[in-house]
């Protein structure tokens, strides 16, 4: 049986991702279109929230991915720290802009939804605030990668930043439970009894969540491949300069 560490070989990683990406991209498109069309066109208005309930199909999946993208970066950073596989450091770098956009979507749709429901675009509520801090961490992480020329040093420092930022990624998820205050409700979906959401909304929401997870995977694979190629390019150019 082949080991997962085989994919730490950049050549093997690119060969494998080039093979599976077309099918994954099609699956992503189908899941996103199906989920969003189902959610937008075929779900009824909520008795309290009216048609704004349709924002849930963007807000919840993007918030889910905003947190999970950072957790994926954390795992990749730990692999870099422990095993020094370049592909894992580059995968963390590749995931950051995707996580940043997901966080932006969660914040923007949350503000747009909050205005008619809470009467305000923004409140210094624990969940909203921890999401804003997560957004700033994403910016800092991307800026740090861009600011340091040496790839290994950049990977080391961003891995440390990622460890620190993980506290806020977790806080974003559990802030409502830690501090029982603020405007934001608890989890929309839960395995515990006393579900808050009707199946009419839950099914298209699951499809949208699957679509966002797939979108994240596809984009991270594409972008990691690009980072691997860009790194090889830098190595070849440096070699050329030394030979000249």
């Amino acid at each position, binding site marked *: 049986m082949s080991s997962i560490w085989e994919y730490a070989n950049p050549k093997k990683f690119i060969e494998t991702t080039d093979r599976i990406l077309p099918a994954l991209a099609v699956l992503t498109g189908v899941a996103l279109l199906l989920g969003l069309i189902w959610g937008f066109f075929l779900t009824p208005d909520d008795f309290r929230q009216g*048609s*704004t309930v349709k924002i849930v199909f963007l807000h919840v999946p993007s918030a889910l991915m905003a947190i999970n993208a950072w957790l994926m970066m954390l795992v990749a950073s730990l692999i870099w720290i422990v095993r020094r596989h370049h592909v894992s450091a580059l995968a963390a770098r590749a995931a950051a*802009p995707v996580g940043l956009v997901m966080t932006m*979507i969660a914040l923007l*749709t949350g503000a747009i939804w909050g*205005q008619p429901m809470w009467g305000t675009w923004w409140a210094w509520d624990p969940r909203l605030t921890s999401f804003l801090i997560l957004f700033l961490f994403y910016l800092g992480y991307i800026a740090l990668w861009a600011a340091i020329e040496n790839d290994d040093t950049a990977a080391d420092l961003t891995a440390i930043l990622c460890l620190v930022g993980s506290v806020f990624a977790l806080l974003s998820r559990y802030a409502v439970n830690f501090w029982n205050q603020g405007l934001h409700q608890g989890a929309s979906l839960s395995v515990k009894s006393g579900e808050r959401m009707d199946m009419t909304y839950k099914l298209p929401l699951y499809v949208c969540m699957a679509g966002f997870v797939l979108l994240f995977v596809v984009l991270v694979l*594409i*972008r990691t491949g690009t980072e691997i190629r860009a790194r090889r390019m830098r190595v070849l150019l440096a070699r050329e300069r030394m030979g000249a």
Partner: protein
Amino acid sequence: MMPDLGKYAEAVLSSYALSIMLIAGLVAVSLIRARRVRKELQGIERKAKTNG
């Protein structure tokens, strides 16, 4: 058949428009950079091979 979004039409439509724009932008930037880097690397590798 556009659903009747009532008084919240602006909020719902702007949420969808903004999100779709951001996702489309991210996908476009990722694909354009992937194509450019792939092309540049091919050029550099070809040159490196020619120079031995």
